[in-house]
């Protein structure tokens, strides 16, 4: 009853103040634009608008920031699909199947899948936020270091199945990612590790330059090596964003539901965020698929899984923010600034003292997800026109845009070095049939896995058995072990079949 009254009151407020609608519209478009430019990201989009919220009232300010967050989470998939350049970290997974689908001449369809999945995931996450914020936040508190460690391992072990003939190469790529994540200061002891005396590397390998280098730069190098005829064929492509039919959406219902649930739950966990949600959503889609070998070739599930997961994580990450005052992601951490400017302290009392604010945010996020569909189509179509420009002009432009965007992040030239080095390394890995996705997953989940394991060991008197036998952690680790064994067995079986076909002389 209280919920219904709260909603009615919030709706009345929104309808009586048309400025809120304008702010929602502006925020969604701003978010999509920031999301689709590599290096800019939703965090920058939110941070740039925070000073402007000073001139607005708290509800208006939070509506606008929430819309930016929603829009930017989808926006990254536009450049991910069209140019293999994730505009935001949470779109890194979308490149894996989005770009191959675009190369098959189905860029519009790929963007349509991304847009629908984002909207469905976003609406799911927001509805869960509305209905289940308090119990979900209590459940999140039950997640301790062993559970976080097991969650990271769950995401990493799925890499064994991702797009390669060799499970060992997949695992090694993931291990390289985990290894790169250890460069910099040890999060527990503050020891410098593997920086070889360089002060610039003390902050570690920053994630955004790494993914831009591994995806965008290596792709430009690869395309530069193509024949001029191959480049000219692509220049004729048209992008007509086409939303999937209801039938096509229905065929993907399991993937959508699973990824939305995963994304919402991971979004609720403090400090994890949409990027991790996207990767785990994708890796679970691979794990449970009847045809995991097709992932990476341009299948709809490969787009729908990460996009619904990352957008549902947006709603999920608002749960700890609004109910406990703990940011669920980096973007919500920045949004706290928007609340603080108005003297509002997020936490358990927020829902009691500022009900109008909370329910307005709920409605605003629902509306932003719907607006995203309309404006996402328009913006994607405009971006798609870039495909008509010859690649000889687009390729160097992408490099310039990436360098500029990466520099703008922290004004740190080391980020450019990281981007260049990993760009060349990514190119080499692809030529040697090492998949890039596991490396990215390792880089994202490595810090979570390490810190959680070490904390869990400390809390359990260095008894690893006690760590892995926590109920939730134990179940997740068991699933991880089984999927790894299954992946290795599958490879062994394929090799045996090949040997049978060609018997020894």
């Amino acid at each position, binding site marked *: 009853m209280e919920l219904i009254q709260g909603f009615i009151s919030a709706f009345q407020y929104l309808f009586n103040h048309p400025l809120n609608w304008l702010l929602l519209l502006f925020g969604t478009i701003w978010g999509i634009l920031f999301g689709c430019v590599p290096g800019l990201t939703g965090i920058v989009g939110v941070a740039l608008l925070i000073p402007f919220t000073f001139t607005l009232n708290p509800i208006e300010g939070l509506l606008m920031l929430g819309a930016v967050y929603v829009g930017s989470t989808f926006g990254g998939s536009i450049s991910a699909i069209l140019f293999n350049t994730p505009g935001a970290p949470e779109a890194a997974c979308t490149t894996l199947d989005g770009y191959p689908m675009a190369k098959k001449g189905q860029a519009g369809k790929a963007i349509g899948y991304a847009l629908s999945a984002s909207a469905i995931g976003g609406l799911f996450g927001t509805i869960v936020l509305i209905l289940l914020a308090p119990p979900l936040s209590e459940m999140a508190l039950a997640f301790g270091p062993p559970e976080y460690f097991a969650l990271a391992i769950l995401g990493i072990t799925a890499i064994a199945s991702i797009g390669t003939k060799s499970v060992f190469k997949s695992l090694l790529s993931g291990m390289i990612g985990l290894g790169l994540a250890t460069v910099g200061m040890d999060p527990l002891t503050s020891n410098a590790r593997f920086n070889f005396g360089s002060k610039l590397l003390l902050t570690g390998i920053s994630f955004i330059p790494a993914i831009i280098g591994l995806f965008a730069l290596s792709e430009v190098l690869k395309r530069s090596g193509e024949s001029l005829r191959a*480049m000219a064929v692509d220049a004729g492509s048209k992008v007509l964003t086409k939303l999937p039919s209801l039938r096509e959406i229905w065929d993907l219902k399991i993937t959508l539901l699973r990824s939305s649930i995963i994304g919402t739950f991971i979004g609720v966990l403090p400090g994890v965020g949409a990027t991790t949600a996207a990767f785990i959503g994708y890796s679970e889609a691979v794990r449970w698929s009847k045809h995991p070998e097709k992932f990476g070739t341009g299948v709809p599930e490969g787009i729908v899984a990460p996009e619904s997961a990352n957008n549902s994580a947006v709603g999920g990450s608002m749960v700890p923010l609004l109910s406990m005052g703990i940011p669920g992601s980096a973007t919500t951490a920045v949004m706290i600034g928007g609340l603080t400017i108005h003297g509002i302290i997020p936490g358990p009392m927020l829902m009691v003292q500022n009900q109008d604010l909370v329910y307005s945010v709920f409605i605003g996020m629902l509306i932003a997800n719907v607006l995203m569909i309309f404006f996402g189509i328009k913006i994607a179509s405009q971006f798609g026109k870039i495909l008509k420009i010859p690649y000889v002009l687009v*390729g*160097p432009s992408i490099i310039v845009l990436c360098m500029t965007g990466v520099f703008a992040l922290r004004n740190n030239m080391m980020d450019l070095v990281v981007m260049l080095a990993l760009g060349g390394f990514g190119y080499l890995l692809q030529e040697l049939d090492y998949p890039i996705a596991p490396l990215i997953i390792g880089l994202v989940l490595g810090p979570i896995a390490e810190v959680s394991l070490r904390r869990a060991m400390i809390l359990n008197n260095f008894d690893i058995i006690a760590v892995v036998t926590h109920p939730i952690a134990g179940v997740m680790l068991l699933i991880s072990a089984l999927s790894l064994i299954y992946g290795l067995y599958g490879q062994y079986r394929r090799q045996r079949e090949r040997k049978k076909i*060609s018997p020894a002389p």
Partner: protein
Amino acid sequence: MVKRIVDLVFTVAVFVGSVYLWFVADRFPEFLKYKNVDSDFWPKIILATMAILSLCILYENIAAVRLQRRETKAPVSLGDDRSVSGVRWKTVIAMGVLCIAYYWGLNLFGFIIATIVFMWLAIVVIGGAGKWAAVVFPLIFTVGLALIFVKGLELSLPRGVWLFRDLSLLFY
């Protein structure tokens, strides 16, 4: 053949690198408080796994060569050359060198000069663009991007050093 050799060299390099970094990790300072889970705990797990995996891949490559020999009964072809032919390697290498040069150019000459020169050279290296597009597009793109970042978003761009810094300051 080239690809297979590069693959073998890469795998050996990963193995040797893992072993080397293991000894580097061994020399990290120790903290009594974190006695069994010190700074080297996690890196050593990763490095040991990498070393084992690289040996497994080495074995896989050797097994693949033997299987290929059995199938074709021909002299060993140490790689799938289909992916190697048709790639303009000189262009790829030149683009890689240009990217590195662009990084240095940003530091020395600032964004505007470095970007225009980089784009002109990159277009020549990749090839296939019309003359007017090759000359005009980099100018428009660079100015447009500088305006968006500096005036629109108020984010700073590299200014360069010495005279070039003064020149950049005229614009942003």
